[in-house]
């Protein structure tokens, strides 16, 4: 089997995967990182890595979970990188950089108690919740995507629910405390 043949097969396969799954992979990365441009870049990276690591996919029927596994690692790598690199604080408006309508829509998407609460919980727990509840990964797929055992994935999901509950409660309490003074001033 020639190397050229392998490359072509990989390209065709990844192209098909892209057609089927790029929307959900992008959505997952956006939910993890909350930055549309970054999510797009990482989606691109994930599919390129899928192409590069095509040989590691044993069964085509597992391609979706395999793809999520790659995307998850890409996301965690980015999050770790952020923790190391301190970006310069951004202050003020850039000249001519008014938010686009698309950006406003995206911001609206990412607002709300739930999104803020998700952002407060540990990233692995966040990933577990997103993959299980929004992306419909089965238990085994979830374990595969997270790179842990089935039992560990279940335990992680359980901890994530508790973290989310507490984070939501904190969000609501914060909202209530903000709303209370404004009511008093009225």
């Amino acid at each position, binding site marked *: *089997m*020639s*190397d050229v*043949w*392998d*490359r*072509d*097969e*990989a*390209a*065709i*396969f*990844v*192209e*098909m995967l*892209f*057609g*089927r*799954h*790029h*929307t*959900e992979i*992008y*959505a997952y990365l*956006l*939910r993890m990182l909350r930055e*549309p441009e970054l999510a*797009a870049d990482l*989606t*691109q*990276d994930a*599919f*390129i890595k899928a*192409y*590069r690591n*095509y*040989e590691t996919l044993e069964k*085509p029927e597992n391609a979706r979970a395999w793809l999520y596994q790659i995307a998850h690692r890409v996301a965690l790598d980015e999050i770790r990188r952020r923790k190391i690199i301190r970006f310069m604080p951004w202050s003020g408006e850039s000249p001519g950089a008014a938010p686009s309508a698309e950006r*406003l*829509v*995206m911001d*609206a*998407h990412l607002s709300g*108690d*739930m999104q803020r609460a*998700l952002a407060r919980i540990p990233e692995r727990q966040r990933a577990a*919740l997103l993959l299980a*509840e*929004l992306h*419909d990964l*089965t*238990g085994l797929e979830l374990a595969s995507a997270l790179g842990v055992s089935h039992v560990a994935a*279940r335990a992680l*999901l*359980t901890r994530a*629910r*508790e973290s*989310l*509950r507490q984070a*939501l409660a904190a969000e609501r309490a914060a909202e209530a405390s903000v709303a209370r003074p404004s009511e008093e001033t009225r």
Partner: protein
Amino acid sequence: MSPRGRIGRFGRVRRRPDSWSSPHERARTRAAERLVAPLAASEAAWLDGHLADCESCRSIAEAYGTDRLLLRQLRDQTPEPPRDLWARTAAGIEREGAALPLARGPGRKRRGTSLPALSALSGLAVVGVVVVATAISSGLLGPVGRDNVTASPSIALASLGIPPQSPAIAVGAGKVHWLGAADDGAFAYNVADVDVVCPIDRQPDCPQLVDGHAKRVTLTATPKFVFQSPIDDQAVVMGTDATGADAVIVVTLPTPDPTPEASTGTDPAGSTERSDVPTPSPAPTPTPTSGATPVVELPSDLPIITPSDLASADLASSSPSASEDQSPQPGEATATAIITDVTVVGRSASYSPDGMWFAFSARPADGSAGPDIYVWHVGDLQARAITTDHASVFASWVGGNVLGSRVVVESSGLADASPPFESPGSEPTFEVPPEFEPQPTPEAPVSVPPGPSEAPTPVPELVPQAFLVDPWTSMEIALIDPEWQPVVDPTLLAVVAWQGTVLVGGDGLTAAPATGNLVVHPFHGPLLTEDPLFSPSLEPSPELSLTPSPEVSVSASVGVTTSASPEIMRDFPSQIVAAGPIADFDARWDETGSWLAIWLADPIDPGLGRLSLLRFDALTGLIDRPIGAPQDVTALPGFSIGFGRLAWASPPGQGGEGSRIQIAAWTDDQVGAIESIPVEGAIVVQ
């Protein structure tokens, strides 16, 4: 070594799974776990008992459920990726490919696609990537915004790679599964590779499909329909058991032997030389049986079953009446009757997309009540009803929710919230949509004869209601469109449904389309509701300008869709795919939402019907029927559609010849077909 020493050596001692610091910790953990999988019966009972007494834990358990619903409502906010994402990715892949070393060691094993086809394509592939990337970036193909809709442009290239003059159509690797009758009361589970089919004009020359790797399967119920899990070899068999009532049984299908390279026995060049396919023998002779399972002797030379091919994969029902008498055999698969003593209603049963649920409709076998929707979760011992009005039937899955329909009011505007089916002592659980609020009318309310002991009385034509149900909580929400048996495509863009009235049958227990049409139209989602558990998810997405229901226009879409690409035709016109009257129908989409198969029951013999394959273009919202696609072909009930294939069973032929498994398979631009040799008692595994 002391326990302390062990702790010191290994650091933290791992807690046993059943060791809890407090019953409250145990309860909260179990409450969270129960959201994704049922607990063991004893643990569930303990949890319920604890929650009944512990307000704090109960509050947390409820919060888990509420938070979960809120979280899942984020599905409605699926963002759209940038339009140039594929162009960027394709360019990256091209760069990556150029940078790969020339030698990468031994080649990987083949996947589904045939090697010759890929070899022929090798020169096209890189060009294809670039061409498609250019096309997408320039807007020629539009964005790939909808999962699975515009997927796999390379597959299109693959089909184009086959010379047009070739008599065969390569459709990629795929399998078709069916049951056939074996001798001694057993059934034969067949799996055949179908990766090449014949063009429609070459059917007389087309070799016949053969499978020499059937597995023997013994069922304690005579199967009517078989549904295979989308994720493994588990299957649900709906059939009639020894009592004469229907039963729903979960089995594990035997694993097929490795299929030889040319298992279909077909010659892609169209040759009729088939040394491995014996000529079908004369009519088989039915064998009288004393049991409930009819036994049909297959001719000895029929290749579907041979003694040497038979494997021990008996599937005995684990229902008490069956399991006590049967000793487990080595390698014997287990089977579980998840419901018995019922009459299965309709043909729309199916697994959920994730394979974790199976939904169907059934009513008591004694005719004491109308149908309800049942769900079974993988791992559970029993199916359970998620409706209680005895007037609901399962239609399809919408993501992880069940979509059902029921009949509520008369078409004349006569309103009656009572279910038209007899359900003594039960209260309807549905809410009548506002537009169907009761109006003062002198006419008598809708009623249905109560039971088989009384003479059935025809009932007026009724208007249906469709609704979503959460299989975990049984919570319902009505859909905007009042219609019967809506089947939503997996991408939530389109739905095929009966729009019109419904007539309750003479037995007072079943319903069927009356006046109206079978229509494909945009999926409009559920009505807005004041239910706090549902309403947040129904807030329209910012990019969609909506008017809340009930004033919502029929052309608007609520934010339940998974994609918001403006290029996708969300407001395409409704199209009639079958004009009424029709006796009954079964409609199913493929996994991409681009192909739709519709089976229409024969008005005289509902055991027969006509099957058609349609293509749905998500970019235009239009339905068409490609050349070569089956159109009104005679078919037995029960068909499978998915992964580029439609399989059904044709009725038995003349002279006692068995049914044939018929397969239509397609690429992006061609549809071909192939059929099996005759099969006794053929049932397509759906």
